[in-house]
């Protein structure tokens, strides 16, 4: 599904290297988790894959189903099936949540040569998918993320994911700012989307999210590289001992 090969990234403004040769291969239907201390480059990886400005790729490639992602505009990446659930979802005053979602869904359908959803059909699907995430019509009427609580924002991200049906989902610290109930709700939303044709890359600090969203592989990232890869047991090890042991072991 996703093949990242020797990816090097610098900040455009500061000439500072953030990613120093990331290699990662994600097969269709699998769930990978990335853990690591602050500043290790986890969020940068998510942003670079989705095409955020301000970063310069100096080396390497990232292919989604064999197609180079790094040459594409953000919206092309989305149409190709990549989705990033933001750590800090952006507030857009004046744009209704419903309008936002419909514009996005139809833009992607158009890009893929599919017919746009009619207003009626769209509404039906949103209602149905919103229900599971406890997102009612009131929340859909409000401007995108404006005045949303932390939990509401994250649920809204998952609803977008459910509506857009991407192939490759990146969850950037989706657990941050969530209480136990909200985490459960969000995780159920994610688990409902797991299937053989869809892969996940879950970026998190904590093991607790991985209790809900069970990963197939866990990677430890530090100083711009993936320094260790293992199964779910690696996350437990981090939870118990922190990163220090792994860092010294690798160094």
């Amino acid at each position, binding site marked *: 599904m996703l093949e990242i090969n020797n990816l090097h990234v610098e900040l455009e403004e500061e000439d500072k290297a953030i990613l120093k040769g990331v290699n990662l291969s994600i097969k269709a239907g699998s769930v990978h988790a990335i853990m690591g201390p602050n500043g290790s480059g986890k969020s940068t990886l998510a942003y670079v894959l*989705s*095409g*955020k*400005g301000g970063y310069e790729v100096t080396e390497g490639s990232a292919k989604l189903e064999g197609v180079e992602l790094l040459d594409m*505009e*953000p*919206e092309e*990446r*989305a*149409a190709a099936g990549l*989705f*990033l659930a*933001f750590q800090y*979802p*952006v*507030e*857009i*005053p*004046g*744009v209704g949540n419903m*309008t*936002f979602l419909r*514009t*996005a869904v139809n*833009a*992607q359908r158009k*890009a893929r040569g599919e017919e746009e959803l009619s207003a009626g059909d769209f509404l039906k699907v949103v209602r149905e998918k919103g229900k599971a995430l406890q997102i009612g019509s009131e929340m859909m009427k409000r*401007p995108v993320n404006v005045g949303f609580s932390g939990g509401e924002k994250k649920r809204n991200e998952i609803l*977008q994911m459910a509506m*857009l049906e991407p192939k490759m989902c990146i969850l950037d610290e989706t657990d941050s700012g969530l209480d136990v109930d909200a985490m459960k709700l969000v995780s159920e939303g994610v688990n409902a989307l797991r299937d053989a044709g869809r892969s996940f890359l879950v970026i998190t600090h904590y093991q607790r999210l991985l209790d809900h969203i069970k990963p197939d592989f866990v990677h430890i990232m530090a100083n711009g590289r993936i320094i260790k890869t293992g199964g779910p047991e690696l996350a437990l090890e981090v939870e118990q001992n922190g990163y220090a042991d792994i860092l010294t072991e690798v160094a």
Partner: protein
Amino acid sequence: MAQLQAKQDALSARISGLDLCREGWTASLRADALTRLSAMGLPGKRDEYWRYTDPSSLTAVEAAPAAPFIAADEKMVFSGIDRLRIVFVDGVFDADVSDDLEMAGLEISRLADAADQHWARDVYGVLETQGQTPVQRPLAALNTAFATDGILIRATGQAKMPISLIYLHKSDTSDVILHHCIKVESGAELTILENGPAAARFNSVMEVDVADDGRFHHIRTQGRDHDRRAATHLFGRLGQESSFKSFTLTANGRMTRNEAVIEFTGDDAIAHVAGAAIGDGAFHHDDTVFVTHGAERCESSQVFKKVLKNGAVGVFQGKILVKSNAQKTDGYQISQALLLDGDSQFLAKPELEIYADDVQCSHGSTSGAIDEGALFYLRSRGVPEREAQSLLVLAFLAEALAEIEDEVLAEDVRIGMENWLARHGGA
């Protein structure tokens, strides 16, 4: 002194070719206006009130030519709305394409042929005169003196559909002065729509006297012609518990100065003045608003948004004046500009002048580029850049558009905005 002399000389030159109508009920009102005007002269570049807008093209002896813009397959706004149409072609009333000037609850007549003992005596030039202090508005006095046509509407009940003033621009050199008077009697309600490119140069005054409990709605779109120049004045006088709501969309036009001068004379009244301006290239757009609170517990709001690109210039001068008797005033004012490229400019002077203590008044003004974070968020969800920009531009303008109460009319204006954005390469 030398400055005043120059302004008076400019006035003499400007009016030398104009006829002062000396017959009928407006004759004395026009003569008074000319006296006011002669004392002021025409506005000059050095006037504080014209700090950000050069009045010379509005005051020049001759109007600069402007070709009418033909939008191939685009319908004019309001065309699908049930309305009574009153059409002016290059400033001249055209009975053939207008509807009959009759509707239950309304008295409508043309300024050019209104009978002698007319109700509009108490309105024509009267609100304009009051609006001359504390700030002079010579172009409005010029209008009162030399208007060639206009419409006089008195509402005594609930008008069943809007009155639509449609201005068609046919001649490249049309130089038009129109003066309208509106009287909304106690308990009556009226909606006025105005649209169209009007003329190569357009000077209009609308005086609106709203009696106690009266309700007045005004929705205006000015647009299309790239080179037309316009100076408009909207005067409002509000009685007790009355309401006045005005919205203007301006798209294109080389020079537009829209002044709104609102005075509360009765308690518990509401006035909202709003505007959205979208300009590309040689576009200078000036909203100048002056709201005077002279009564208690009145609410006023000014919401102005401008989207500017390719060197377009947006100006906002807004003032809330609260007199010492106007306790419990609620005054709000916001002016915001979205600059889509580095060549555009936003110049603002949002003022408060307050002499009563028990008031809540606030204003805000912001200027900046499109929100890159929001743009990326939209694109990451698959929305192409141009579409994402348009969406954000419309969202930016939404607060002003929300001032249109009628949803059907608001949707019509919104489509007008979308068409403009589409015509001008997205945002």
